[in-house]
Structures are given as structure tokens and as C-alpha cells.
């Protein structure tokens, strides 16, 4: 059972690493800015997944705070990017 967990987590780590590479290509090459925004957001999600799988592999609970932290930072970044794409300004002077 332990060996199965180890194999599965290694395979998952590899797949997520490959997907992060493809996302990096999309973030750099992306034809339009929304493509880049979605790619960066998904890189954040993949980072959380990698941290979670590392926590399983290293048998530690200390990484749980890190996962929550990356999630919050990725959320704020996505909100800022979405607002920039829609309005062209992140922090408005006044609410109309």
C-alpha cells in the first residue's frame, strides 16, 4: 500500500511538472493577454498540487499552511489580472 502511494505520487508529480512546462510555454507565447492570465492562474493551481504531493511524499503536515498561502496569493493575483484586462486599471480612483 505504501509502495502504491509512492508510485502514484511520483507519477502525479511528473505529470503536473510536464503540464506546468506547457503552461509556461502558453504564458510566454500566448497570443493574447487573457491566455497568459489563465495560464498563470493554472500555474498557481499546479504549484499547490505539487506542494500537496510533496507533503504526502515527505510525510509532513507543515506544507498545509503553504498550500493555503499559495492559494490566497494566486487568488489575489487572478483578481488583479482580471480587473486589469477588463478595465485597464487595477486600483480605480473612485467607484462610479
Amino acid at each position, binding site marked *: 500500500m505504501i509502495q502504491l502511494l509512492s508510485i502514484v505520487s511520483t507519477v502525479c508529480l511528473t505529470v503536473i511538472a510536464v503540464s506546468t512546462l506547457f503552461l509556461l510555454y502558453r504564458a510566454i507565447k500566448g497570443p493574447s493577454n487573457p491566455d497568459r492570465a489563465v495560464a498563470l492562474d493554472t500555474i498557481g493551481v499546479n504549484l499547490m498540487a505539487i506542494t500537496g504531493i510533496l507533503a504526502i511524499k515527505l510525510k509532513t503536515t*507543515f*506544507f498545509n*499552511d*503553504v498550500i*493555503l*498561502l499559495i492559494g*490566497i*496569493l494566486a*487568488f*489575489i493575483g487572478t*483578481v*488583479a489580472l482580471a*480587473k486589469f484586462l*477588463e*478595465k*485597464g*486599471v*487595477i*486600483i*480605480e*480612483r*473612485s*467607484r*462610479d
Partner: protein
Amino acid sequence: MKNVTNDLILKTATTIIVFLILGFSVYLFFAGHNAPGGGFIGGLMTSGAFVLLYIAYGFQTMNRVVKIDFKTFIPIGLTIAVLSGVGSFLYGQPFLSHTDGYFHLPIIGKAHLATAMIFDLGVYFTVIGVTMTIILSIAKDEGEQVENAE
């Protein structure tokens, strides 16, 4: 490019999420020196919550609500950090000596407190001040005249 939209979902969600982030930042601050956390990342989370509020509500409303000049946080934090080091002279110890102990607190119960937490508090305030100053002065438009805080 500037569309006039009513960010109802963003504003409603922000009012709830900001308190979650602030609570998490306090937790991170107290989790430091034993687990991942500490003054730096706690301050970063607090300024993240403030940035989310600024994104949702804009400069004008936030200046009316938060009447704090974030630049004053930097000297306050640096003073706390220096005092935590100078305080060890009172006990005849070298500069920035460290001590810790277990205390019994009313609600939390048995808690592990260390003098590194006072230094961390200084780092916390300094990080809030620096991060908010950098982000707000970058976000300010060149053409528009915006006062940071009265």
C-alpha cells in the same frame, strides 16, 4: 478601454474574504518560530488583504475608511525590532539575545512564547508599510492627482 461595470460579485466576496485572509495572517504570525510562518509572511498576507480591498473599492472609498498612512508603519516596525534587541542589555546579555518559555494564557492555554516574536512584530509592521507603499505608489496614475491618505 474603460468599461463602466458594477463589480457586485467582487465587492461582496471581498468583504468576506478579507476577514479570512486577516485571520490567516494572524495565525501565520503566531505559528512562526516553530512552523512555517512568522512576521514576514504574516505582513505579506495582511497587505494582500488590504490590496484586495483597494482593488474592490478604489482609492477614494478606501482613503475614507482606512485613515492610515502606511509609510508610518516602517519607522514603527523598525523601532520595535531595534528595541527587542536593546532590551537584552537590561539583563546584562549580549545584543539580540534570545530566550523563550512556556506560559499559561487565558483562552489559548499553554503557549510557547519567545523574544523572537517581538522582533517578528517589528518585521510584520515593516513589511506591511513597505509593501503597501510600493503597491499604492505604483498603482497611482501619473495624470490623476490622488492623495494617499489624509
